[in-house]
């Protein structure tokens, strides 16, 4: 009994301190210092360790903590959808200044919660609320035109493909996923009008064995460059590419670099990755928040020129992609930035 009551005391203490902090949320951005940092929660509707999307966001938080007066708590809600809303609400209720959550899975909850917590700022990355329909003055939507980066990777892939057959593997079909492919297909066709692009939908983001089988099937059907856009499922596809000695395009983060330490052979086949620089963009958004320049209440659509998307130009890119192709890719990149080439996108 005594043990229990001591718990209650601790809890009461915790709650009290939390409410004091909540009451003392400073309105003026300049107040934040290293000793009185802006309190940020990165709420992931999943877990860390996906080696792409969520991990990249977490990397961005680390970078932000290094050079900004922020303290970040990463909250992993897991894969039980019925707990996501509750988890986000709990974060909003726990005295954070900024809550970061991503994708359309969380947008609805952000839309509902933001009017209830007007003093808390919300960053909705990789999706956006419909600002015409909601009272979301404290929400910042951050979206990425990944099609443009996909275009670059598709161009390079078609150029280095010997068979003229490419494979794409989607985890599921929704715009943030298909946008990669939309750009990739355009780029590939631009490089080689006769290119044959195989496509498969795995139906899951967490079935690597299946991702591996699908990639093997595509390779068997002639594909020599595979582009999995499928989270954990895609990790399996990369393994198939490694085993078959073909080439792959990574997704979201620089996957070759991620594998370099634990599995160098895996890194050797990923000639580039289509980067959705989530971490980088969030880092920027936090900086802008502290500066007071972040356009809350609107959506930001970030592209190549914002350094929010792109392809990884690392040592493997240098090694596996011939210099002339690299030069062409750089030229195209400039044309996209200048608007000379317009890449169709699924992001509206």
């Amino acid at each position: 009994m005594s043990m229990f009551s001591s718990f209650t005391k601790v809890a009461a203490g915790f709650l009290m301190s939390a409410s004091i902090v909540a009451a003392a949320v400073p309105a003026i951005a300049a107040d934040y210092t290293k000793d009185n940092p802006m309190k940020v929660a990165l709420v992931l509707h999943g877990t860390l360790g996906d080696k792409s999307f969520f991990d990249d966001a977490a990397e961005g938080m680390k970078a932000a903590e290094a050079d900004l007066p922020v303290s970040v708590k990463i909250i992993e809600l897991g894969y039980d959808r019925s707990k996501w809303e509750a988890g986000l609400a709990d974060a909003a209720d726990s005295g954070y200044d900024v809550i970061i959550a991503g994708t359309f899975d969380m947008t609805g909850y952000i839309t509902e919660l933001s009017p209830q917590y007007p003093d808390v700022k919300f960053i909705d990355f990789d999706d956006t609320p419909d600002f015409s329909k909601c009272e979301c003055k404290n929400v910042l939507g951050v979206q990425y035109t990944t099609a443009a980066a996909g275009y670059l990777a598709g161009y390079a892939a078609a150029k280095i493909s010997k068979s003229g057959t490419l494979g794409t593997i989607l985890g599921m079909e929704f715009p943030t996923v298909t946008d990669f492919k939309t750009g990739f297909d355009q780029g590939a066709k631009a490089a080689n009008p006769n290119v044959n692009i195989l496509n498969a939908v795995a139906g899951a983001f967490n079935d690597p064995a299946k991702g591996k089988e699908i990639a093997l099937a595509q390779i068997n059907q002639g594909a020599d460059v595979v582009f999995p856009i499928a989270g954990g499922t895609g990790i399996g596809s990369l393994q198939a590419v490694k085993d078959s000695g073909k080439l792959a395009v990574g997704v979201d983060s620089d996957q070759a670099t991620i594998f370099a330490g634990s599995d160098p052979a895996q890194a050797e086949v990923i000639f580039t990755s289509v980067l959705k620089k989530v971490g980088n963009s969030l880092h920027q958004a936090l900086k802008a928040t502290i500066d007071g320049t972040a356009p809350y209440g609107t959506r930001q659509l970030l592209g190549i020129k914002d350094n929010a998307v792109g392809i990884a130009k690392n040592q493997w890119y240098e090694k596996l992609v011939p210099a002339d192709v690299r030069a062409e890719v750089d030229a195209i990149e400039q044309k996209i930035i200048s608007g000379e080439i317009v890449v169709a996108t699924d992001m509206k």
Partner: protein
Amino acid sequence: MMDIFLTVFSATFFVTIIRTTTPLLLATLGGLVADLSGALNVALEGMMLIGCLTAVIVSVYAPWYVAVLAGLGVGGLLGAMMAFFAYRLKADIILVGFAVNILAAGGTVFALALATGGDKGTSINLQSQAIPAVDLSFLSAIPGIGPILTAFLSGHSVLSWLAAFLVFAVWYFLFRTPWGLWLRGVGEYPGAPEAAGIPVAKVRTWSLVVSGALAGLGGAQLAMFNYVGFTRDMTAGRGFIALGAVLLGARHPVGALLAALLFGTFEAFAVVLPGLFNWMPAELIRMIPFVVTIAALVLFSIRAQRALAMRGVK
């Protein structure tokens, strides 16, 4: 249409089927041993999953065969735990089985996080190893059929060969050794072996241990060959499909092999079909094994009823 034929009759597709079948077959054999000893092992799923994780983690620090043995061992251990609760503490074995599954679903993620220093999704931070494939490319030296033999027989996992051997071994054990006689006797009418001085509790316990070990071996194959590494819930219902395969296979090792092959083929189809039939929704393809299990269950039961009816019993 041509595409399908080419794909289906290709050596690669055959190799794919063997690969998808192997973990299923091992788990099915495990389910069979438990079933014949009188216990429906609904924990195959959980045992496989824990087998996956154990094999992956051990393979980081030890040679692949030690990791495979670890997967097998942990499965056996879980079987012993089930036996303890079911036979010693008289818990219902179905409920114990589900407890193991729940333990596996949460426990593997938890243990993975501990092993990787925080990753709850995949084990790619761990340098886990693969089970080697058996290279029979020397067969292509045989004139004529050599290349075909190589295409079909080379490149399978060591455990695929082992699984094929285990079909025979389990059959031999069940129907040609005294212990197989004991096990089947215990499953059919425990009073008889008990009266003959056979330690029934021990036979049952060992059956579950073997059952778990085979499921764990299936897990090792899944996490060290089909895909090298662990991700949460990576068994994705294979343990339950194996349970269906036991019933479908008429509780016989050869039947188990055929049933596992059937489901393995469906799984392989599910991989190949989207490449060929983009119109076919992935969800419906994924339903196939479950629908087939139910259909098989119903057909088998209808056949059993018909057989009775033919003999004049309504």
